């Protein structure tokens, strides 16, 4: 089975965020990591490979440092990868990124399955996977929490998460694209031999032009970034100050005598 897993690098959300000129976050202050939802997608891909054979190919788009997350997926067991490294892609919106990744997948000459995380932790838009599926003409399923490939290797039974603890059980023909939700598995940790091997695995670096991606940058985007800012909340909690003991004392007092909930 030829499986593509899409991986994105995101900031660790516990980093200290600083906004520069209403337009971007100060990346020098940020620790980067693999999008958590993508770790589940990598694991799902590896488990399918272990069962059905074949290869797991990682595709990511982003600046040079993104090779760290790709190599992390290699260390988990993925076989090789493609990094689309082009500022013209990075400057585009979801559509530009989806169109470029679609081209990168096309360059593999046919795949059985494409997996991505359900959303990126940074932009939280949950549209890239669905766009890539549509651009490729593939059926898709989002929020997948269970995958069972049929005996024929051509159809899958998947569970799509719904609100309030329900799942839709659906059948879908392959090739297809699935966006993977957390909880589907326990992503493995890279082993030391895995990390050693990962350094030698093949990573093709591609410019947009080399894969034939033509809709680029702001011009190719369908949406336009206006600005970013820290939210101003109309409501803010009453912060109870002092050391742990003092704050705890104030809290218990407030819960008993002010909120009257204890």
């Amino acid at each position, binding site marked *: 089975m030829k499986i593509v897993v899409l991986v994105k690098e995101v900031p660790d959300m516990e980093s200290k965020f600083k*906004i520069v000129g209403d337009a971007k976050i100060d990346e020098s202050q940020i620790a980067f990591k693999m999008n958590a939802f993508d770790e589940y997608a990598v694991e799902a891909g590896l488990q399918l490979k272990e069962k059905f054979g074949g290869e797991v190919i990682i595709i990511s788009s982003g600046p040079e440092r993104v090779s760290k997350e790709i190599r992390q997926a290699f260390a988990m067991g993925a076989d090789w990868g493609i990094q689309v490294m082009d500022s013209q892609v990075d400057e585009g919106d979801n559509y530009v990124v989806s169109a470029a990744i679609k081209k990168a997948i096309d360059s593999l000459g046919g795949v059985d399955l494409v997996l991505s995380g359900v959303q990126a932790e940074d932009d939280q838009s949950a549209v890239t996977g669905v766009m890539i599926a*549509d651009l490729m003409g593939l059926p*898709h399923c989002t929020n997948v929490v269970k995958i069972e490939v049929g005996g024929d290797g051509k159809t899958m039974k998947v569970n799509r998460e*719904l609100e309030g603890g329900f799942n839709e059980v659906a059948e*879908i023909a392959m090739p297809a694209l699935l966006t993977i939700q957390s909880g589907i598995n326990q992503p493995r940790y890279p082993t030391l031999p895995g990390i050693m091997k990962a350094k030698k695995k093949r990573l093709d670096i591609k410019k947009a032009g080399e894969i034939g991606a033509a809709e680029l940058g702001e011009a190719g985007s369908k949406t336009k970034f*206006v600005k970013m800012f820290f*939210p101003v909340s109309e409501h803010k909690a009453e912060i109870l100050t002092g050391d742990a003991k003092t704050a*705890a004392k104030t809290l218990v007092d407030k819960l008993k005598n002010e909120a009257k909930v204890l």
Partner: protein
Amino acid sequence: MARILVVAEQRSGKLSDATLELCKAAKAIASAMGAAPAAAVFYKDDSLAKEVAKYIPEVFSVVDAKLEAYNADTYTEAVKAVVAAQDVKGVLIPHSYDGVDYAAKAALAIGAGIVSNCNKFEMQGGTLVLNRNTYNGKIQEQRSIKTDKFVVTFEKGAFDKEAAGGAGSVTAVAAAISAPRRTTKEIVAMMAGSVDISQAKIIVAGGRGTKEKDKYNDIIVNLAKKLGGEYAASRPVVDAGWTDAARQVGQSGKTVAPVLYIAAGISGAIQHVAGMKGSQCIVAINKDPEAPVFNIATYGIVGDLFEVIPAIMAELG
């Protein structure tokens, strides 16, 4: 006149609250843009279209047996048919499980740009500008859409629900709906368990900040017991197997509304907040002063939960 079109959402024949919220949004956006609010309803008959017409002046109804349950392929075809038949400028879709599943596909099908997961809009010199949460709710971003038509998905709760009252028109729109490539076999409940935390008066919930199973048990479970309440968790805690799924609070878990909800080591991601924002009194304990959970809490303590919770236990005696 150009329409701002809400695509209605239903499960088992019941309209979602998000549909009624988007009726409100469509009216506000239409009025700001000099357009008319309308809705599209896709179902096996026109009963739901008539229902939606109580909330919005104009409803376009696509009727087909294949539309009884939601499906990405059939919904995309139906959106395309309504847009082809009517003068539609904007399409509003809930940022829900179903909405997220097809909104981007529908946007490509009608040649529109999409901005998803929005919570507010404003007009800037005649351009519709959308606000959306990024970076786990720590930063807000504004985007606009360059294409002639647009698709926007809105977060649940971004608008109040429209009240019923009107008697809008229902117009049938013909659409050739093909057999979908993904077929639904059944809908199953996954979170059945021995506890029903939705009935608890006091809930102590722990998040990823509780670090590991033993610590979660030691800190969260014990405080819950001391207070005579139930313990609960955010999703990562359940994913990691530190507690069972029946105790997960949020969009994909339980909705709770206790008298007291203590959230410890929980950042306050919107999917978690969706399940607990109705609590009467919310206490947030988090070491990050910028954690979004402080925007919904009644009382907040900025600090290490491993120091603060034992101190609360000691204070309770």
